[in-house]
């Protein structure tokens, strides 16, 4: 049974449509990432659900209760702000206690829950510090404790990790997922970082230009993007335009500029213009993977630490390949035989997409 139900939500700013016909549901305790590039409407969606702005159309329900007309401070949702918005004149304990105080919870109970919340985010002992005396990661966790301590019906996090440096962000996203999991709260996380969405959420809602592009588990979006946009946003570097030339049991053949490619079956009919998406790390250089094979010449080699990123000229186009590091460094000008399996060849909607 769905806990959060969003139906046909729409919002325009003058002539600019920020959000259009957005519908989705989330189960109790589920962590959903609202993913998309800036300007896709994800922050608008969050503010609509929080009640800071009113929708032009559509409904928002939490636990079956219609929220549209409920003012923000009565929605029983907690929000985590991008810059944390900790109260600078209150110490950590008072910051965390703020929501409890506003709900009129008695002092002993308040103190107990504050202690509990600070333990949950591993900040026990820092009760008397002021926000300015804390590191960015600690401030982030105080903000999380302040939001979780009121046991909100819904936790809304707006770009929670974007103010942290790269290394801290990677630790924090694991910590945060663990904390959120233990708190058992239903969470919506706004992010533009696909890796963050993959790591932290149970399901990803990919938004583009105010409409839902695709919704599914992290594996769904990563392995089985449905559109050119989704494939591109999930870092699939190879998008090759083509036309379906044959379909038989279980697989299709797509005629492309680099030759005929075999792919998993899809909804498109023979003759349809489609795009083939292949992830760089699924392509091998030794021609041993089977199903699809093209010959090419290595043009550029970039060392990324975990892998070599190669640009290979093959069949008149450039194919990006991620070859695992550790082996011999591929050389520019080297002749290679690119190959990948049929199940790693995705047919996505939208023809004519140039290889990016």
């Amino acid at each position, binding site marked *: 049974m769905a806990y959060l139900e969003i139906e046909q939500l729409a919002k325009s700013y003058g002539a600019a449509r920020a959000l259009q016909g957005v519908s989705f549901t989330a189960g109790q305790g589920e962590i959903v990432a609202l993913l998309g590039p800036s300007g896709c409407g994800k922050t608008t969606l969050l503010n609509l659900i*929080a009640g*800071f702005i009113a929708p032009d159309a559509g409904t928002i329900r939490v636990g079956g209760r219609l929220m549209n007309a409920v003012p*923000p*401070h*009565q929605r*029983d*949702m*907690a*929000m985590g*702000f*991008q*810059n944390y*918005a900790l*109260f*600078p*004149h*209150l110490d950590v304990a008072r910051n965390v206690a*703020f*929501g409890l105080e*506003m*709900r009129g919870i008695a002092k002993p109970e308040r103190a107990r829950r504050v202690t509990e919340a600070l333990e949950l985010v591993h900040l026990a002992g820092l009760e008397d510090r002021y926000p300015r005396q804390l590191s960015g990661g600690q401030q982030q966790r105080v903000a999380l404790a*302040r939001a979780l301590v*009121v046991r909100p019906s819904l936790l809304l996090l707006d770009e929670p990790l974007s103010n942290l440096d790269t290394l801290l962000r990677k630790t924090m996203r694991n910590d945060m997922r663990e904390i959120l999991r233990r708190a058992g709260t239903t969470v919506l996380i706004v992010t533009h970082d696909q890796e963050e969405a993959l790591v932290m959420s149970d399901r990803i809602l990919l938004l583009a230009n105010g409409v839902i592009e695709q919704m599914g588990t992290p594996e769904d979006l990563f392995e089985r993007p449905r559109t050119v946009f989704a494939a591109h946003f999930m870092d699939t570097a190879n998008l090759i335009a083509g036309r379906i030339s044959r379909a038989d049991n279980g697989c299709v053949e797509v005629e492309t500029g680099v030759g005929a490619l075999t792919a998993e079956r899809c909804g498109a009919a023979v003759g349809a213009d489609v795009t083939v998406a292949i992830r760089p790390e699924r392509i091998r250089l030794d021609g041993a993977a089977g199903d699809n094979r093209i010959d090419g010449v290595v043009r550029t080699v970039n060392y990324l630490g975990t892998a070599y990123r190669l640009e290979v000229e093959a069949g008149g186009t450039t194919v990006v390949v991620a070859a695992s590091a550790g082996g011999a460094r591929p050389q520019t000008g080297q002749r290679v035989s690119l190959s990948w399996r049929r199940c790693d060849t995705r047919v996505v909607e939208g023809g004519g997409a140039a290889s990016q």
Partner: protein
Amino acid sequence: MTAVAIAAAPRGWRAGIGLLLLPVVAFYVVMFVWPSLNVLWLSITHDQHLTLSSYIAFFSDPFSRTVLLRTVRLALLITVAALVVAYPIALYLADPERRGRGIVTFVVLAPLLVSAVVRAYGWIIILGPNGLLSDLLLDLHLTSKPTYLLFSESAIVIAVTHVYLPFMVLAIAGSLQQIDPALGRAARNLGASSWRAFFRVTLPLSLPGITAGSLIVFCLSASAFVTPTLLGGSRVPMMAYLVYNQGILLLDWHMASAIALILLVVTAGVTLLYSWLTGRGGPVEAVR
């Protein structure tokens, strides 16, 4: 940042900065320090003899004591009045989404653009007998006799509050503008009504502006001369008027100096007390 830049500057540079400050320091010494010491000297001497007779004369005179108390009382009243009037204006000015902020700023700053004498005569027209205020109250049948506010403490409070309002507004607006707008939304989101969000978040965070504005307005109004003299005159004299009276009319420079110093000590004392009350480690800080 500036401090860092200066500290990091080469030695020669720092000497150069010292040299550049020289004219200011010289001006300050000649025009302020020397006369101030002179005033101090005059207040504690009589015919070249050290004596506290001027101070004793001041404090033993009931009229002088009344004037001192009135000055402190009116200055406090003006500060409170300015605070109450200024805060909503500052809130309006600090909200970037409000239109017409330019016009409001101009109206608030306008008293500073008009000469003190002209402004005082404006208030005389409004507050005097058969003035605008009196006529208005009569026409509305709120009073049966003409209201006569001129040459009263009320006239002084109204007019001086008007002049020094800009300092209060700008000080508070400045500190309100530094508050992250997300804090208000965070408070609302955590279940605070807009009133509670204001009293728990906005008001405490604007305290530095309130302190600064109050101190400026208190000190300026305690030593105000032109406006209180024109609107209160000899009927409700304040300290600055006494100084003028003793120094310029009665030519008793010793007494005038003593009164000036008493005023200085009182305003300095109030300033220190207020800073301690609202500053770090003070009782108000502890409450927050």
